């Protein structure tokens, strides 16, 4: 065989002389590789995000909402017949053996004023156990206690966003804020949680004792929802049964009557979410497979279209003394150079697209090394095969047959 460096030079010369063909071949590989990496990246990115959100949702969580109800023949919308009270929460806490934590959730909203700033946010009244249900961690200070709840204490724990907006770099602990003209003392700041599934900032929140928000701020007696967590993942079903029994008794619902509350648990939420993300990944995978095939067909077409020209070229080279291996090596090198260059450009392009998606849109992409390797290998294999195959066939011909090829 001739020197490899000479054959490599011949390959480069040929690539440069046939710029259009080279470009189109590489383009097929570039598109194939980048489409697959980005698609699968989006799929696994959103899967990861959903998994993270589910875990940030809390442990073995059960949520009780007031329900659309029919009482005395009058139908009322969800929440309008808000009958869940602090007593219901207490009853669950006392009686349900499979429930580890339970907390009332009292929703309110309003301007928070302090340190010369004001910020409109959501204020939620909860019980100390809420911290464990939703797995909130404290970054400074502390969460309020049962005593604070019993005594309707005017204390508050701030989410990171609220703390930043009102106090900036200043330490909020011990400072005062006013919520709807009621002064609250800040006793803690929460650790950052980031966005939730709908892109809402989970740190844009103020927590205060449930009783304080319910009686002092809202002057109401009904809570918006009850959050609880089961002792274990397996006991979610039982805990849910217990809660329903207790609430039916408390609300004096006769057998056969509709409940005036709805219970959802995390297993159902998790299942729904992972089903959604599974379908999404499947769809994206299908799109990716299609782009890979389309890219592959593109490569194949370019290669096959140029077979006649290439076969004649091979005939000319053989007629002046090229050996079979010379031809094969040159064409193999050419296919490898084109495929590898195309593959690398495709990978860089997909990283660029991922960067743009992650920074400028709500789409999250997570690029794994496996898919990079897979798509690169697949496209390169197509490129090399279709570059090499015609050469292999032509090199086996008599020069005169290669020259006559049509």
């Amino acid at each position: 065989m001739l020197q490899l460096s000479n054959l490599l030079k011949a390959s480069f010369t040929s690539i440069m002389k046939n710029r259009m063909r080279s470009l189109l071949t590489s383009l097929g590989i570039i598109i194939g590789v980048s489409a697959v990496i980005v698609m699968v990246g989006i799929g696994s990115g959103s899967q990861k995000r959903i998994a993270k959100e589910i875990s940030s949702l809390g442990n073995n969580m059960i949520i009780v909402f007031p329900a659309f109800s029919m009482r005395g023949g009058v139908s009322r919308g969800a929440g309008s017949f808000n009958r869940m009270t602090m007593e219901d929460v207490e009853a669950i806490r006392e009686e349900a053996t499979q429930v580890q934590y339970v907390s009332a959730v009292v929703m309110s909203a309003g301007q928070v004023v302090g340190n010369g700033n004001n910020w409109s946010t959501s204020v939620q009244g909860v019980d100390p156990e809420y911290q464990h249900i939703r797995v909130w961690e404290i970054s400074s200070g502390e969460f309020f206690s049962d005593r604070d709840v019993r005594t309707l204490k005017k204390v508050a724990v701030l989410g990171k966003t609220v703390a930043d907006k009102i106090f900036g770099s200043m330490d909020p602990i011990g400072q005062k804020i006013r919520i709807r003209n009621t002064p609250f003392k800040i006793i803690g700041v929460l650790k950052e949680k980031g966005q939730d599934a709908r892109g809402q900032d989970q740190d844009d929140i103020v927590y205060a004792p449930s009783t304080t928000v319910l009686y002092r701020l809202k002057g109401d007696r009904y809570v918006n929802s009850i959050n609880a967590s089961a002792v274990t993942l397996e006991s979610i079903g039982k805990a849910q049964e217990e809660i329903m029994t207790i609430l039916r008794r408390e609300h004096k619902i006769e057998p056969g009557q509709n409940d005036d509350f709805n219970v959802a648990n995390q297993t159902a939420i998790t299942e729904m979410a992972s089903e959604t993300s599974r379908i999404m990944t499947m769809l994206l995978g299908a799109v990716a497979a299609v782009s890979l095939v389309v890219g592959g067909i593109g490569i194949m077409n370019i290669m096959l279209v140029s077979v006649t020209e290439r076969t004649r070229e091979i005939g000319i080279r053989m007629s002046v003394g090229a050996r079979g291996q010379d031809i094969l090596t040159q064409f193999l090198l050419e296919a490898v150079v084109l495929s590898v260059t195309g593959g690398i450009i495709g990978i860089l392009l997909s990283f660029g697209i991922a960067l743009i998606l992650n920074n400028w849109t709500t789409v999250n992409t997570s690029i794994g090394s496996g898919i990079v390797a897979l798509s690169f290998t697949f496209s390169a294999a197509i490129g090399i095969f279709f570059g090499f195959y015609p050469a292999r066939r032509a090199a086996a011909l008599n020069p005169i047959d290669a020259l006559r090829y049509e």
Partner: protein
Amino acid sequence: MNAVITTSRITKTYQIGEIQVHALRGIDLSVQSGEFLAIMGASGSGKSTLMNLIGCLDVPTSGRYYLDNIDVSSLTKNEYADIRNKKIGFVFQGFNLLSRTTALENVELPLFYDRSRRIKNPKQAAREALERVGLSDRMDHVPNQLSGGQQQRVAIARALVNQPSILLADEPTGNLDSRTSVEVMSVFQELNEQGITILIVTHEDDISRYAKRIIKMRDGHILDDSPIKKATSARQILEIMKEED
């Protein structure tokens, strides 16, 4: 005798579906070193087929072919390639130049595949070969910027560049005007004087008279094989043409 080319009962049969085309039906031919042979005959008589076999571009269906007393059919594919590279210069009827490749690069191509590296400076050798066919001012032109005659001359330069001992040319003047044809024949005669064995295919009597021996073919047979007492000198004809101008 010093025969460079000897064929013995060479046949070539093309199979096209059910039909068999007998392009050569047993050719016995012997060519001595330094001969200048013109192969003539009607279209389809098997001239190109014979040239391709002699040029080691194709293999016969049956019969033996000895090149420098070596039985070519016993050689490997690589040895075949090396013969095409070193011993034989082939000028195709349709030129067969690499497209998008300059005249100089086309002429250099055989040297690229020369493993022995006999010729130390390929660029220089290619330039000299092009000068020899009078194309020194067209070296950087690609084939589609050249006329048929110029492409023909590039093809001849490519056949010469590796200093072959045999030059084969299939209708080398088929695309040329009469003046250029004589110029090309003059180049061939000059090469022949330097000792290169030359075989050309032509159907023009005007051209065949520059050869030293004429072979006539019909239907895959050699019909007639006769030496020419005194070949016409292309150089003299050229001078006469110049005077006429």
